[in-house]
């Protein structure tokens, strides 16, 4: 029903565009000058079609369900039902009307379902009638109104601006929404678990929270020594550090090679090849780390008499580093290439060699961009999930030995949210608290990155 209506409105929009333009041509043919190009008249009419349609659609979307629910439940008022029970009745009614109800069907519910269906169809047909009549009226009004000297260009331009503004607003509001959903759950979590225990506790064992029966009252003391996040923060930064130890030197050097030394031909093939690395799904890196690198390191370690865990921070961090190489190499290549040729010429003309020029002139000039690319790599490393879940182990050991298994914030969120979980349970909320910390860390990184880039930008010119 909605689809047909929607198609019809789109067709109507095209038609009004056509009529608007035709009217403009007619005016033009009487040798009057138009205030805008004919297509603006067309767009103007189409907007007069689109805006009322949008308003009516949203009004129905907002109010129809509420009104229908009120009408259905009015039959049950004054019968002493609780709010929860009323909601349940309404859900049963809806399920029955869709033919998906499997429980016992009472006559009451059956009657409600019939009423529900009839209400819905009334709502739908009234929507269609109101929609079409209002649209046709508004388009007709606008059609009559436009004349040789009416302003059509400005409203059309304003409309486009409003559409673009709405799009960017949607992106921003989504971010804000995500942050708020994190904040509220996090606050709930810290009502049970003291912030101090979370930030400074050294023992992370969320599985312990499973022991609780949900019918029991919440007893905060039983969670002491359960949600101490130090081991997983340490693990996160440790694995990110290992990753950056791999990614920064290799990425930077390959970026410099691509930008300064590689011939046009080599660059043409090498750059896309390196960028392919960035396109490999992280799951693939994950089992490369877990099934190839991990056991390989274990074997080497064992042959040297070292005790290496099959799931080690080194394997996860190393493979993560390889994953980040293309970001750093490709970005620093771009940054270095954009250093003006005049600086290179100036240095060569002084008799500097290529490596001296790179070291003393190009690298300092490109530094802000390079720092930016490195910080971007660090945020990737901290936020990376799949590789650590698969290759670094899930036990939150507090260790600085790269050969042992550790766990990270992201991996713990996965562990917590996989399988059975209950909302309002500290264990589930712990995931939000972790997500919040992750968000704060990457936010700080981004702020620092922006600061650094801004501070050095003037030197760039």
């Amino acid at each position, binding site marked *: 029903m909605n689809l047909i209506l929607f198609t019809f409105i789109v067709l109507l929009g095209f038609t009004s565009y056509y009529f608007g333009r035709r009217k403009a041509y007619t005016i033009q043919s009487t040798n009057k000058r138009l205030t805008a190009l004919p297509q603006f008249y067309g767009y103007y009419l189409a907007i007069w079609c689109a805006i009322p349609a949008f308003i009516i659609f949203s009004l129905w979307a907002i109010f129809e369900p509420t009104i229908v629910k009120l009408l259905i439940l009015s039959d049950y008022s004054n019968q002493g039902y609780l709010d929860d029970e009323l909601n349940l009745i309404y859900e049963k009614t809806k399920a029955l009307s869709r033919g998906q109800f499997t429980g016992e069907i009472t006559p009451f519910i059956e009657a409600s379902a019939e009423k529900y269906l009839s209400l819905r169809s009334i709502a739908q047909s009234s929507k269609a009638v109101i929609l079409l009549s209002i649209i046709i009226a508004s388009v007709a009004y606008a059609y009559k109104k436009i004349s040789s000297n009416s302003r059509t260009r400005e409203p059309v331009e304003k409309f486009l601006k409003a559409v673009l503004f709405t799009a960017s607003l949607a992106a921003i509001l989504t971010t804000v929404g995500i942050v708020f959903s994190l904040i509220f759950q996090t606050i709930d979590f810290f009502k049970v678990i003291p912030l101090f225990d979370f930030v400074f506790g050294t023992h992370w064992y969320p599985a312990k929270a499973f022991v609780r029966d949900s019918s029991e009252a919440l007893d905060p003391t039983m969670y002491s020594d359960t949600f101490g996040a130090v081991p997983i923060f340490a693990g996160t930064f440790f694995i990110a550090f290992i990753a950056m130890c791999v990614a920064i030197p290799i990425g930077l050097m390959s970026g410099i090679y691509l930008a300064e030394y590689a011939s046009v031909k080599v660059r043409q093939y090498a750059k896309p090849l390196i960028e392919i690395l960035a396109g490999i799904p992280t799951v693939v890196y994950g089992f490369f780390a877990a099934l190839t690198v991990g056991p390989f390191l274990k074997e080497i370690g064992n042959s040297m008499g070292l005790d290496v865990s099959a799931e080690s921070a080194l394997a996860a961090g190393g493979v993560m580093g390889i994953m980040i190489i293309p970001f750093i190499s490709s970005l620093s290549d771009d940054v270095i290439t954009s250093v003006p040729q005049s600086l290179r*010429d*100036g240095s060569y*003309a002084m008799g500097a060699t290529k490596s*001296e020029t790179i070291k003393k002139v190009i690298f300092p000039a490109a530094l802000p961009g390079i720092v930016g690319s490195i910080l971007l790599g660090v945020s990737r490393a901290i936020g990376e999930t799949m590789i650590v879940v698969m290759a670094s182990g899930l036990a939150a050991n507090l260790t600085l030995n790269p050969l042992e298994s550790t766990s990270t914030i992201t991996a713990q969120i996965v562990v917590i949210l996989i399988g059975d979980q209950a909302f309002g349970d500290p264990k589930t909320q712990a995931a939000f608290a972790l997500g919040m910390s992750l968000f704060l860390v990457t936010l700080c990184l981004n702020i620092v990155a922006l600061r650094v880039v801004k501070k050095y930008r003037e*030197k760039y010119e």
Partner: protein
Amino acid sequence: MKKNGVKMIKINSKNVDVFYGKKQALFNINLDIEENQVTALIGPSGCGKSTFLRCLNRMNDVIDICRVKGQIIINDFDINDKSCDVVRLREKIGMVFQKPNPFPKTIYENISYGPTIHGMAQSKNEMDEIVETSLKKAALWEEVKDRLHEPGTGLSGGQQQRLCIARAISVKPEVILMDEPCSALDPIATAQIEELIDELKKDHTIIIVTHSMAQAARVSQNTGFFHLGELIEHGSTDKIFKNPENKKTQDYITGRFG
């Protein structure tokens, strides 16, 4: 300038051809540059005067598709020969570019760059002295002596160009190449640079590419006129401007084309 009545030739180019890929940009250039004189290269855009200038310190090496043929002899040595050390060559032959291109470093570091890479100063004091004399020679010292450790990019356009000249003379080159050094500057900064060029020719041989005929007439003792990759005429500036032999030179100088 004549020594014992004989002109001292600093650079002697013989049959120089330059190609960009398959396109020939310079045809058989034979031009002698006199020592401690200012030689101006003039001609319409795209005539090859900058290309020729860049041959003299092998800056064309930087361009992949560029090939240079012929001999360019400086101090009895062919710089196009395989045995030529480009680093040493560019130490002897400095260059100033069209757009001021100070490094994104401090004023001090801009000047000390050349002496450092050529290992010219043994101590901090020596380096300070080189920086000071270079800036003084470039008539910039008074303006920047209190802000040596501020970025060179913060100077005005004219000051930046004088900084680049100071950078070029910091390694005591024998020759300074200038590629339209005033084209990005206002008339006052241009006048300062021209005055400076006159001063510098005591110690250096200067070759300047310019679009401004008036500038060529003001600053140079010798002039070469390029057109479509060929050296049409060269000689003393007086003669080229007052009494050119070639019809094209005359047309260009009187503004009939170009």
